[in-house]
């Protein structure tokens, strides 16, 4: 429910409304069931999606992902990351991914 906190704090959004919004956003990834879990109980992909959503909760969000393959090490390519970004593309203004040059292959044609 850290996702809801951003809206509650910056926009003074009521608790229920903020939680509903966070839950709806998590449902986009099919992760509604993890809404009440704490960070250590999350898998790598789940944690990545939560962090992404949390970043997207800020108004006119500019998302910067630093070395995403460190967060989800077992991914073979950027498919999962791009798919996740596409699912919430209406929530952020722009997104930049930073990684080392030797990771270029994992990003395919990007």
């Amino acid at each position: 429910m850290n996702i809801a906190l951003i809206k509650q704090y910056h926009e003074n959004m009521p608790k229920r409304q903020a939680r509903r919004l966070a839950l709806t956003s998590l449902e986009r990834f099919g992760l509604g069931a993890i809404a009440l879990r704490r960070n250590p109980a999350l898998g790598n992909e789940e944690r990545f999606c939560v962090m992404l959503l949390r970043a997207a909760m800020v108004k006119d969000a500019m998302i910067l992902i630093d070395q995403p393959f460190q967060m989800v090490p077992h991914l073979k390519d950027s498919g999962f990351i791009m798919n996740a970004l596409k699912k919430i593309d209406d929530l952020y203004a722009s997104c930049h991914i930073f990684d080392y040059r030797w990771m270029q292959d994992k990003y395919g044609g990007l």
Partner: protein
Amino acid sequence: MAFFEILGNRVIRMLSGFAGTIAFSWKVFLRIFQRKTYSSAMREVLVNQIYFTSVQILPLFLLVSIFFGSLFIGIVFTLLKELGLTQFIGHVLMGLIVTELSPFLTVLLITLRSSAAINTEMAVMKVNREIKTLEIFRIDIINYLVMPRIINGIISIVLLSSLFSIVLLASGILFSRVIFGMNMDVYSNLVLNSTDFSDIVISLCKCAVYGFFITLIPIRFGLRASRELTSIPVVVSQGMVNVFGAILMIEVLSLITKLL
């Protein structure tokens, strides 16, 4: 010479720490009156904190206040009877037990339970870099983490101390009947005649000051933790020692205020 250098350094460090705490207290105190402090997120934390500090502790607190309060009232009443000072029951009850003992015991209980928890929580948050994450999201640490805990401290100590006083006065009814054969009307008259409004105001103010500092000091020390896990026990023990120092200082200051 080395001895004086070490002593001087310690005194300077202690004084600058004290000045830092006072400056931080003033900053936090001003925020209490700012409307933007009370965001939806802060209010949620405040409600949770009040639940953890005041509601969860109620069964234990009632048990301690009934047991300890009755014991204390019993001893004091027996002593007063033996010394032939029955006419001072009211003054002893209001002046010593209600205005001095209740806030002191309440603050000790809450310090042992909640201040230690707050100190550790803050230190763990600092070590886990949760504080850093909040700062990244432009969430003001004072508004979101500090203020709910401090306001909770003030509310909880005032309410729990009042509850402690009520329990003490109620057990006084029983003991005045058993020891002095006094009926409830006489007892109530004695207590009401000895009640000084200024004493109650000082007592409530003291509770509020206690509540403010027994939450502020652990937060301040908790936030001093470094990124090392080993810094947690260090800042917790420092914080708790300073809290007990602050309690004694407030107690002495309130006694001086009463004397003036």
